[in-house]
């Protein structure tokens, strides 16, 4: 790889990154709604079939998406996308893909990426890494939409169009050299 593009990025402390445990303690609409009705977390441990069903139906949320991608390594720093705040929890959205079809299981996961510098040429590779990670980890009923956060990159539209192109992404997955870079980024993921 050539010279570093951003040799002095801002780094977040891993301990400050949002995690699942803290999320549960936070008071959100969910807590007062659905989760308030759950009496005791210990109930989840029982093998009662009804509870199993509940577990199965528990939707994948933004935190889970974040957990999947925060540990991806930056291609030029020995740091994770979470630590560099390239990905962050408030920039992840999950919405029904077909709101007009209530029975449809399709959901769209949107991840907005904030490159460390506005002209980072690795933005496409980072975006591809995030898209590949999510497509490989999420059930196929999810449509993955990875985009550069508006105003954070000089050629954001170009990068977005490329990341949204299914055919280009599919071809990239068959490109050995590119996949080596992606695989290296994924090494730090569980």
């Amino acid at each position, binding site marked *: 790889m050539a010279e570093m593009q951003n040799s002095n990025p801002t780094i977040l402390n891993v301990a400050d990154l949002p995690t699942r445990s803290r999320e549960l303690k936070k008071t959100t609409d969910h807590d007062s709604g659905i989760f308030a009705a759950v009496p005791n977390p210990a109930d989840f441990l029982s093998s009662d079939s009804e509870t199993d069903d509940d577990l199965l139906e528990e939707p994948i949320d933004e935190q889970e998406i974040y957990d999947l991608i925060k540990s991806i390594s930056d291609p030029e720093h020995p740091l994770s996308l979470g630590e560099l705040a390239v990905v962050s929890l408030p920039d992840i959205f999950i919405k029904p893909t*077909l709101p007009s079809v209530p029975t449809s299981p399709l959901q769209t996961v949107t991840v907005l990426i904030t490159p460390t510098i506005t002209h980072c040429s690795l933005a496409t590779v980072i975006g591809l890494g995030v898209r590949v990670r999510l497509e490989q980890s999420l059930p196929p009923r999810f*449509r993955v939409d990875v985009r550069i956060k508006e105003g954070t990159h000089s050629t954001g539209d170009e990068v977005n169009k490329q990341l*949204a192109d*299914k*055919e280009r992404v599919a071809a990239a997955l068959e490109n050995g050299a590119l996949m080596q870079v992606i695989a290296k980024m994924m090494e730090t993921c569980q």
Partner: protein
Amino acid sequence: MSNLNSNSNPSLSLLSPLTPPSLERTWLTAPHPTLPIVATCSTDKTVRIYSLTNFTLLSTITGGHKRSVRTAAWKPHITGESVLATGSFDATVGIWRRWDTYGQTTADHSTSLNDDDEAGLGSEADDDEEWRFAVLLDGHDSEVKSVSWSPSGILLATCARDKSIWIWEDLDDGDNNFETVAVMQEHAGDVKCVSWHPVEECLASGGYDDTIRFWREDLDDWGQVACIKKHEGTVWFIDWEGADNIPSTSTTTTVTATATTSTTADADANTATIQTQWCEQRALSGPRLISCSDDRTARVWRRLPKEGTNGINSSAATGIPSIIRPTGSDENWEEDAILPHAHELAIYAVAWSKKTGLVASVGADGRIVIYEERFVQSGAAPAPAPVEGEADSEAMEIDGPLKTEWAIVSVVDGAHGIYEINHAAWAKRADRGVEDGKDEEILITTADDGSVKVWTFQR
């Protein structure tokens, strides 16, 4: 208003999947022009040949491509042998050949095992099962996205991510030689699709630069004759209207309007008038093109008749128009229609039936939508016509160009479960369920999970 309700629920129903499916993403399924077989392109680097008589796998073409097979097309107008062109992410185009013995060995109701004209070839039964690799066309720098044979079967167009379109001539010299006729590089991004005009040597292409372009040969040089920049996203697929297509008159407002006052004979005469007028107008502009895009629209494009002929706004009912032979100069293509909005995500393919005129669209939202084009009686419902045949038929005289509208006649959500649908194609029905003497059509859809499904459309 009774249009939709009075129809006895036209619907698309699943006839059968093609089995066994590919275990990886399939991109496209190309129906053979004459035989009841299809070729399905898979990410597993193979092409699967399925039977449309029993929906099972006949053979698998392997070993030719090093990466995903993205596209395939059958060479038209050859007998005794089938020739398939395949395009792959490995940047090459493969040509495959096989003697036509399908039907003799696999069809379930074959009646002529002995008296077929291919008895001589039958002696090498084993070899006949094999697809013979003929030649690899090398020239593109990156993934080949689409291939298309010209109506004569002499020219093959191929396009790729390298922004170029190549036209090859099949020299048909028995030695599998192809000659490069032209390389066009005007597209500013991946060329996603190429498709030949149904009768003329005119090529249309669409791509990542959101444009649709038209190409013709002028004095031995292939060049761009038109460029449409109306889509707001990648143009994923294009398809031509059949050369003899006439929109539906069975469900137009015309019929409902006349039903109250006129006899069936009047309605028939009226229908005939409209159809004649349509054919006259259409001789001026030729078959239209349909395109679909990442911008979630499907649009129909029409060529404006050349200057020097009767303008399109004058009544086409006078005189018989001459057939226009463009001389290679620029052409003007205008938007004829935007199909009713029906997809929430990118539309990956459209298929315009050459037989029924129905259009099918599929895309990332997993939906199949069927559209029908109908005549609209412009300025219908004038003064209530007296109950007399003559006055009535006079009211049917139509001024100006005929208008049509596109209506959605069927929608299937989750047609391949949760998976995206990459391609749709119409084909002739050939299984046992087809009624004797009937010429039915089926729709074949190809999806991300490797599944290919065959549907029938009932009115």
